[in-house]
C-alpha cells in the first residue's frame, strides 16, 4: 500500500513538471495558433544550458533557475521576432502552415546541432544535491522531486496571476481570443507574439532546469517529453492552459502508478490508450475548448 502511495506522490512530482512543459506548448497554441514542433528540442536546449551552467560555472542546480528561464526567454523572443514573424506576416489570412513547417525544421536542426556539439552520450549533473533525500515516515522523496513540484506549482500560479492581473497578460489573452479585434483596439499583436513566445520558452526553461537533476540529457531527450506534451495538451483540451497543467499531473500519475504494475514500455502504451479512451468520449479534451 505504501508503495502505491509513494508512486502516487512520485507521479504528482514529475507530473507537475510535465504540466509546465504542456502549459508552455498550450500557450503558444492558444495565442499564436501554431503548434510548436520544436518544443521538445527547446526543452533539450534548456536542459543542456542547465548542465553546462552547473558543470562549467559550478553553480548549484537550484540556482540555474535564475539563469536558464531568462536565457530561454531571450531565445524564444528572438526566434519569434527574427525568424517566425516574417513567415507569419505572409500568412495572416490563413492558417500559419508555413510556421508549422518552420518549427519542424527547427526541431531537426536543433537536434542535429546539439548532436554535433554535445555528442550523443547521455549526461547527468554531478552534484551532491541530486542525491539528497527527504524521509517522511514511510516515504522517501528525492529532494529534487519535491523542489520540482513546489517550483512548478509556483511558476504555474505566477503565470496565471500574470495573465489575469496585468495589462500585458490581458493583452495576451485578448490576442488569443480574437487577434483582429485586439489589434483594432490598439494591441500590437506581433509584440504580443514576441512576448508570448519568450514567456513560453521561459516556462519551458524552468521545466528543463527542474528536470535535469532527475533525468539525463542527450540530443534527442526532447522528443520523448515533446511527444508527451502534445498528448497532454490534446488531453487537457487544445488551448486550455489549466487543462494542460492538470493533464500533466494525470500523465505523471499514470506513468508512475502504472509502473508499479506494468513494465515501463507498457506504461507508455497505457498513456496512449487512456488518451484515446478520453478523446473517444470527450473529443475536445478533458477541459473542453475554453480558451483562456
Amino acid at each position, binding site marked *: 500500500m505504501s508503495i502505491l502511495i509513494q508512486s502516487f506522490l512520485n507521479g504528482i512530482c514529475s507530473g507537475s513538471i510535465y504540466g509546465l512543459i504542456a502549459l508552455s506548448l498550450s500557450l503558444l497554441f492558444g495565442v499564436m495558433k501554431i503548434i510548436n514542433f520544436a518544443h521538445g528540442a527547446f526543452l533539450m536546449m534548456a536542459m543542456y544550458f542547465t548542465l553546462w551552467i552547473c558543470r562549467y560555472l559550478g553553480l548549484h542546480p537550484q540556482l540555474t533557475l535564475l539563469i536558464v528561464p531568462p536565457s530561454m526567454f531571450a531565445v524564444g523572443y528572438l526566434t519569434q521576432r527574427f525568424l517566425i514573424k516574417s513567415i507569419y506576416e505572409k500568412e495572416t489570412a490563413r492558417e500559419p502552415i508555413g510556421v508549422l513547417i518552420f518549427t519542424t525544421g527547427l526541431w531537426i536542426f536543433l537536434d542535429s546541432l546539439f548532436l554535433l556539439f554535445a555528442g550523443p552520450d547521455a549526461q547527468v549533473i554531478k552534484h551532491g544535491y541530486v542525491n539528497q533525500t527527504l524521509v517522511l515516515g514511510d516515504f522517501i522523496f528525492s529532494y529534487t522531486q519535491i523542489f520540482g513540484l513546489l517550483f512548478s506549482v509556483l511558476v504555474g500560479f505566477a503565470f496565471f496571476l500574470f495573465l489575469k492581473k496585468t*495589462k500585458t497578460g*490581458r*493583452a495576451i*489573452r*485578448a490576442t488569443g*481570443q*480574437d487577434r*483582429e*479585434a*485586439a*489589434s*483594432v*483596439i*490598439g*494591441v*500590437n*499583436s506581433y509584440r504580443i507574439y514576441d512576448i508570448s513566445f519568450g514567456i513560453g520558452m521561459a516556462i519551458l526553461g524552468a521545466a528543463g532546469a527542474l528536470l535535469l537533476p532527475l533525468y539525463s540529457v542527450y540530443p534527442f531527450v526532447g522528443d520523448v517529453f515533446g511527444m508527451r506534451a502534445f498528448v497532454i495538451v490534446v488531453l487537457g483540451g487544445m488551448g486550455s492552459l489549466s487543462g494542460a497543467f492538470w493533464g500533466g499531473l494525470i500523465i505523471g500519475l499514470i506513468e508512475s502508478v502504472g509502473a508499479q504494475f506494468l513494465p515501463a514500455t507498457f506504461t507508455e502504451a497505457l498513456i496512449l490508450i487512456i488518451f484515446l479512451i478520453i478523446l473517444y468520449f470527450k473529443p475536445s479534451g478533458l477541459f473542453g475548448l*475554453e*480558451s*483562456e
Partner: protein
Amino acid sequence: MSRLSRPTWVKNIMSLLSVNDVNVYYGDVHILHDVSISVGEKEIVSIVGGNGTGKTTLMKTLSGLLRTKTGSIIFQGQEIHHLLPYEITRQGISQVMEGRRLFPFMTVEDNLWMGAYPLNDREQIQRNFANVLHLFPILGKRKSQMAKSFSGGEQQMLAIGRALMASPRLLILDEPSLGLAPVSVSLIFDTLQQINAKGVTILLVEQDVKKSLSIASRGYVIEHGRIVMEGPGQQLLSDPHLKETYLGI
C-alpha cells in the same frame, strides 16, 4: 478640383477624417471604387447601403486591416492609410467592428480594461471607466460576468463601452443594430446621440436606413462599392430613389 465641385456645406466643415479616392481589392476583386467621404468635427455621419456593397470593407480599410491601392485617408491632418491597426487606434480612432468582436472568455470588466490598452494615464482610465458605467449601468452590475454570456444588445453596449475606453475623438461603428430587438436598437441610437453630445465624432455604417439617417447630420449611400449619393440626413431620407430602394416606399 473635385473639392470645388463639392456642395458648400462640405467646405464649411473642418474635416476630422477625409477619405480620398480609395480603391480596395480582395485579391483581384475590386470592391471599393474611388470612394471619398469626409467626416467633420463633432458630426454624426452615416453610411447606408445594402448587403455586400462594401461597407465593412471600407470600415476595415479605415482601421488598417485592409489597405487601399490608391488615394489617401487623412485624420487630423495626418495620413493614416499606411499605419497598422494599433497605430491608428492610438491616433484617436476607435472602431466597434461588425459582429461586436468582444473577447468572449473575458469578463465584462476585463473587456473594458482592454479597451483602454492604448492609454497610460491611470486617472484617465478610471474616469473613462466611470463614464462608461454611467452610460451603460448594466455593465457595472455584471462586471465579473463572461462577455459570451451576454445577450446581443448587452454585447453591443459592451462593445461600444470598450471602444469608448480609449477616449476616441472619432468613434466608428459597423452595423451596431444588427440582430438586435427594436428596443435595444433605439437604446443604442439614443446612446450614440449622447456620446456625440459629449464631443465624440461618430461615423456609422447601418442597414437601418431610417434610424441612422435621422440621427445623422450627413449621410452617404453606397452601392456596389461606389458612393452614389451624399447629403444631409433628412434630405437623403426624402430622396425618391433612396425611399424606393431602402425604405420600400
